[in-house]
């Protein structure tokens, strides 16, 4: 048995492990076995929930960046592809909007009390 066989085995191990893990997590997310209740809702200090548009935009931005990068990486070779210009700014802005909204709904109500 040569080292090339070991490399071939290691390659398939990683394919099955990472692929299997991703498939299981994806399946559990889709079937509700991983809790996703109120993913797009925030919680006020009084315990009530509110629909949160800032979470929706963050979800869209996350899935868009992730999907685009995965697509680029699948056609790349040699090294990890760089992110397209403006992606980091977009993601940073999206996260800022989400955190600002969360902070606003948390501290605004606290100050009112």
């Amino acid at each position: 048995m040569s080292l090339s066989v070991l490399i071939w085995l290691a390659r398939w191990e990683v394919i099955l492990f990472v692929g299997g893990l991703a498939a299981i997590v994806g399946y559990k997310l889709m079937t509700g076995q991983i809790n996703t209740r109120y993913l797009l809702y925030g919680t006020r200090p009084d315990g009530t929930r509110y629909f949160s548009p800032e979470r929706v935009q963050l979800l869209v931005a996350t899935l868009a960046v992730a999907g685009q990068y995965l697509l680029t990486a699948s056609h790349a070779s040699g090294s990890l592809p760089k992110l397209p210009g403006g992606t980091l700014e977009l993601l940073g802005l999206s996260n800022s909007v989400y955190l600002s909204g969360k902070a606003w709904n948390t501290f605004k109500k606290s100050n009112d009390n």
Partner: protein
Amino acid sequence: MTVLTFLTWAAGIVVVVFLGLLGLAIVVLIAKGKISLNKLVSESNGDASMSRFQFLVFTFVIALSLFLIIVSKPTPEFPAVPPDILALLGISAGSYLVSKGIQFSNPAGLTRPALVITPSATTGTAPNAVVNLTVSTANAQPGTPMPPITWSLEAPAEGTIATGPTNTATYTAPGVLPAGGLKALVRAKAAGFDDATASITS
């Protein structure tokens, strides 16, 4: 074959077999529910967290991309990671940390919802006796609907558990009680809630 070549080959075999078995065990245990992932993206109050979800998505994307790049090379080697990828993960992790800070300044964001079984303890159970169990929620925020409940018996499963309508179940003791007496533990589980248990003894 030289001694060094043999050692390289033997070490490679050991590493490949060990990591393969470890990976297989992890995937199988997760698939069978022995390693629970049901709170993978949950906050401490039971609600799902957008920050955790984002972190999960980017972790998988970068891991899969890294793997695709490594296997695309004729001789596998670890590729250079561009700084903007580190920045991407940094933004995601930083957002998660700030989110935690905001959440911990909100008392309503910290209470963990839990299931409660009534009665929580039943003693003096006779053979074939039937115990009706009801589950309710505690610490849940207003408007939280009753989640789907999964009932189970902890090992050694003495007796049977039958799921009833909505939030009830019926435990039936075995026809012949174990020599040391009946010691059954019923568990109720639901995504986003702490488990509840009820003990049933003879």
